[in-house]
């Protein structure tokens, strides 16, 4: 199997990847981080979880990643979860500084006992997808922040996972690099047909990237609105400057603002 053999299916024809059923997460001490989270992730979806700090978006991601268990409810992978079904990109590049770029991307295979030589083609293919094939033998410290993030993305998609989780991956980057990476992420998605759940606190990023935006509110963390972004892919500078984009961004922004001051809404 190669990295880009998955067709981008039209909406409706998509099969579900993951179902989250009425999940609650309560931390020790009774803090409710998430209440009644329900979500069906379909193949090819680009879902953004958008909300202020403390709305439980990162908790939701950690639950899906299997890093914690829900207090109530279930997260079910359609057809069960295989070992290479999940790729994760964190807010930091999270690379091993003692390994070269290629060896970093090798990690998911390495942990399954596959030798470097046997997966070298796939590693180089993933690096080519993020435009870093020339830097395979560099060490992470030699790369810029944006390039490190690309390596992290290459590592997440090298196993051709059914779902890629991204936890505010570009939040620490400058605006120019961030826009470039947003463009690149979309073209990656177009080529690989990847399914992505993307956590962000940027309205513009979520509107630019996703076809579904789940707006979340805090105390307790919950989804308050699902906004569908009808514009198809590919998206580029035209989408970023279109009136439709502005309208969705405005609606999303207003929903988000309403979550910040719940007392005034009642």
């Amino acid at each position: 199997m190669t990295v880009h053999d998955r067709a981008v299916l039209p909406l409706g024809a998509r099969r579900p990847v993951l179902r989250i059923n009425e999940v609650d997460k309560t931390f020790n001490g009774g803090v409710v981080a998430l209440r009644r989270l329900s979500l069906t992730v379909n193949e090819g979806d680009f879902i953004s979880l958008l909300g202020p700090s403390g709305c439980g978006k990162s908790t939701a991601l950690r639950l899906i990643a299997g890093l914690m268990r829900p207090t109530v409810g279930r997260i079910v992978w359609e057809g069960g979860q295989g070992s290479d079904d999940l790729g994760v990109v964190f807010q930091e590049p999270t690379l091993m500084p003692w390994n070269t770029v290629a060896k970093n991307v090798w990690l998911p295979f390495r942990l399954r006992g596959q030798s470097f030589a046997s997966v070298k083609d796939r590693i180089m293919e993933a690096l080519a997808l993020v435009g870093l094939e020339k830097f395979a033998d560099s060490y992470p410290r030699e790369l810029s922040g944006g390039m490190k993030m690309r390596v992290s993305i290459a590592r997440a998609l090298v196993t051709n996972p059914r779902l890629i989780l991204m936890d505010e991956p570009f939040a620490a980057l400058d605006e120019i690099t961030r826009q470039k990476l947003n463009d690149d992420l979309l073209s990656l998605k177009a080529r690989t047909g990847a399914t992505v759940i993307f956590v962000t606190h940027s309205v513009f990023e979520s509107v630019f990237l996703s076809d579904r935006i789940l707006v979340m509110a805090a105390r307790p963390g919950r989804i308050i609105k699902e906004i569908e972004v009808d514009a198809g892919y590919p998206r580029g500078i035209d989408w970023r400057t279109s009136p439709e984009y502005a309208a969705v961004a405005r609606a999303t922004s207003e929903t988000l603002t309403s979550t910040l001051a719940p007392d005034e809404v009642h």
Partner: protein
Amino acid sequence: MSVTHNTTPRDQQGSGPIFDEEEERYARAQRIEAIARWVVPIVVLALSIWLWDRVVVWNEIPHYVLPGPGLVLSTLYEDRVTLFASLLVTLQITFMALAVAIIGGVGLAVLFTQSKFAEMSFSPFAVILQVTPIVSIAPLIFIYVENRLVGLLLCAWIVAFFPILANTTLGLKSADHNLRDLMNIYKASRWQRLRFLQLPSALPYFLGGLRIAGGLALIGAVVAEYVAGTGGIGSGLAFRILEAGYRLNIPRMFAALLLIALTGIVIFATTSLISHFALRKWHESAIKRE
């Protein structure tokens, strides 16, 4: 008023790639510093030795009180057979102790990070051994341990192993938490986590510990020899110093001391070099900033 020379076009200036006086001054200061880093310590050391020699000659100090540097060197040459045999003994104890300290320190550190109960059970012993001065433990060791070499080894090991244990434990625990999450997501085994994440994370810490432990192993070996005393079949450098002291052979004491100091320097330089080469590709401490 004239315009500052900074705005003069480059081709109207003198030749050479440097077109700023301040920059030139800075570059010159850098060059001088690079040379001075080597020259200054050597000159100061040479001056000190010369002064030592002059003090001995001018005050006509007898050699059994303070020998001059020349006499120390000639004694080192004349007694070379005895002294180098002793040096080998001290080196043997030092390096064996260091090797056991590395194995024991790293092994215990791995055990500590794998099992909380092991850490709770054994870390008090490690701390007690570390904080109790070796001179006060050593006499007991020589009462209970029959073999003198093993006794010496044990003393040197006790001193050397703690920095390796403490540093490696810290290093194993300081692996990046996102990388640990990543290991969980990819369902890495305990062994894989140790091999691919924790051990490489701990390497800089371990090497820091090794630099300390190398010097301490030598100190431990020498101290243990002093405690073991001149009885028995002792023949290390510390034994030579004690022996020469009893015979008022001060020049030989200095010669043996010189050998111990040189050994310490060589050990420190070697461990620093190992550390540099192991980390130069990726770790902050070994990277030269441009």
